[in-house]
């Protein structure tokens, strides 16, 4: 179904601005599907994932620009480094729970942001740096239309992998960690390793999308690693629906498009955005998609 939507949507796109917004929405969707494995399924929070996203972006930008590596290699190396970093910090911080974990991940994200901002000789500082096009085997991805199809395929792939994972021994173990850590432990689930695993996986997702984003956008600033961006990602997941692959996807798409629509309300935009966030969470506490689905089920059951 997703494939159909992705194929049909461009019929409504009259120019490349629409493709651009759609590509950004799909970028966010991929990050959120990954992040949802951590937040929605394994029940762990992270307020620092924008940091991993930014590391991927800067990793690719630097490795291609100053070392002349091919973009795909730069992307994989960055993702590996980010994965290792997530592994190293994940061990100690994932012992923390709830708000303490939120604080620790937030700290990690902010430290990454500060480093990117401060090491101006390498990163260009707060004013940002430019990035080359993405090319693979002599084939260059250019223009919003081509990006649309590439990212669309990646999104479908991501959703497929995520759905696979959830309905598998590893996925069930992750969800069990959310349900009850001690309950999972006593039947043989090494909960701390699984928490680290899903943290690393979601960080790698963020890093790879960061790399692609850098190439596509052609210009990056350290703000993509800011605390605000981390919060945005979490809001997308929670608003769309935790523990629902399509929920996270829908959340990402809606929150990417919403500002483009809210553009017409001028200074009331922030108030409306805040009100929408509050309203959704009050009336649909499980997020858009799961709440709608269960309401649907209830109605069917009632008849």
């Amino acid at each position, binding site marked *: 179904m997703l494939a159909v939507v992705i194929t049909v949507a461009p019929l409504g796109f009259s120019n*490349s601005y629409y493709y651009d917004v759609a590509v950004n929405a799909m970028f966010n969707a991929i990050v959120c599907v990954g992040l949802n494995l951590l937040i929605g399924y394994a029940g762990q929070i992270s307020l620092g994932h924008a940091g991993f996203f930014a590391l991927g972006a800067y990793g690719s930008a630097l490795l291609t620009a100053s070392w002349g590596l091919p973009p795909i290699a730069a992307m994989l190396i960055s993702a590996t480094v980010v994965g290792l970093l997530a592994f190293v910090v994940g061990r100690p911080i994932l012992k923390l729970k709830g708000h303490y974990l939120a604080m620790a991940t937030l700290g990690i994200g902010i430290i990454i942001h500060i480093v990117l901002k401060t090491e101006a000789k390498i990163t260009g500082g707060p*004013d*940002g740096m*430019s990035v080359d096009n993405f090319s693979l085997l002599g084939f260059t991805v250019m223009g919003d239309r081509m990006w649309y199809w590439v990212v669309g395929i990646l999104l479908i792939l991501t959703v497929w992998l995520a759905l696979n994972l959830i309905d598998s021994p590893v996925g069930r173990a992750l969800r069990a960690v959310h349900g009850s850590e001690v309950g999972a432990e006593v039947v043989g689930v090494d909960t701390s390793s699984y928490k680290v695993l899903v943290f690393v996986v979601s960080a790698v997702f963020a890093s790879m999308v960061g790399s692609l984003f850098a190439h596509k956008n052609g210009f990056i600033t350290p*703000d993509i690693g800011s605390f605000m961006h981390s919060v945005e990602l979490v809001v997308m997941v929670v608003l769309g629906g935790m523990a629902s692959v399509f929920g996270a996807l829908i959340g990402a798409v809606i929150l990417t498009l919403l500002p483009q629509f809210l553009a017409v309300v001028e200074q009331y935009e922030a108030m409306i955005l805040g009100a929408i966030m509050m309203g959704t969470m009050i009336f649909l506490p499980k997020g858009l998609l799961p709440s709608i689905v269960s309401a649907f089920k209830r109605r069917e059951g009632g008849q």
Partner: protein
Amino acid sequence: MRNLTRFGAAFVVATSVYGAAGVALAADPIKIGSILSVTGPASFLGEPEKKTLEMYVERINKDGGVQGRKVELVVYDDGGAGEKATTFTKRLIESDKVDILIGGTTTGTTMAAVPLAERGQTPFISLAGGVNIVEPVKKWVFKTPHTDRMAAEKVFSDMKKKGLTKIALISEDAGFGKSGHDQSLAVAKNFGIEIVADEVYSPKDPDVTAQLTKIKNAAGVQAVFNFGFGQGPAIVTKNFKQLGMSVPLYQSHGVASKDYIKLAGDASEGVRLPASGLVVPDQLGATDPQKPVVTAFKKDYETAFKSDVSTFAGHAYDGLQIALAAVLRAGSTDKAKVRDEIEKTSGYVGTGGLVSMSATDHMGLSPSAFHMVEIRKGDWLLSD
């Protein structure tokens, strides 16, 4: 969280003023697109820029437009984020099909938009300070404000005149301050000035006495130069006074607005900074060509908005004037022709100074555009 408020915080400003409703226009309007940081940390730059553009577009249309064509303005708020600036610039070029781009409140948002303007072959007049916007020259990109390098040079030449050769830098570690800091380091030795201490602070730090104490204890500091905007410089100024530091304090053009004096209060007495004639219209010489322009602009702005004029508003005014003059000369909104005409801008008297552009200079301001002012009794005093 701030990003969320700006999260595309897009202001489509429906300022397009079509004469009487329903009256068919003789020609298509001239479409000007603008990305500005109306919210976020640079909002007190973006906000006056937006208000200025709106006010003058409305006035021009009331007066019959340009060559009988109305001017239509589309503004989007990028919240100071480069990534939002990219998307909105694309929207302006691709979807709104604007003829000219004005904007980019900060160097970061400008640089994010530059590749799109180049690719979309749309003339782009930036309102940001970074020297890298026009160096190296980019075919479609121009800018109106003085560069941070010019500000640093102006300050250093003033120091040199006063025999101050060993100085300390304290700068904000965000875009404006960081870029100014780097330019200061680059040009200092041309003036025989040695930077003996170099400290930074975050834009929202409540107290910077720690950094200033380090500067105070550095050997031989003869003056302190602060690069930043917003409330930071006011806190620096207050803390400077608190520590009883007696060397001269210099600020950058980033604080050339009355708000700075209001916030820093008595502590700002004696602070020197480079600023355009706009802040001291009455003190300009009677023969100064800028005098009538800045006096009129100041009056317009202050009557319309009941608040003190800022130099940032002036950058927007200059950008609009240069763009529309180029359209007038080109006789059409053909993008290539307009671009050529902007590059031929010569002898334009703006709020920032005398502008004469060329193929190698896409800003066109000479160093004389800056005046050195000193704060005396809570007001600006021209002092060069």
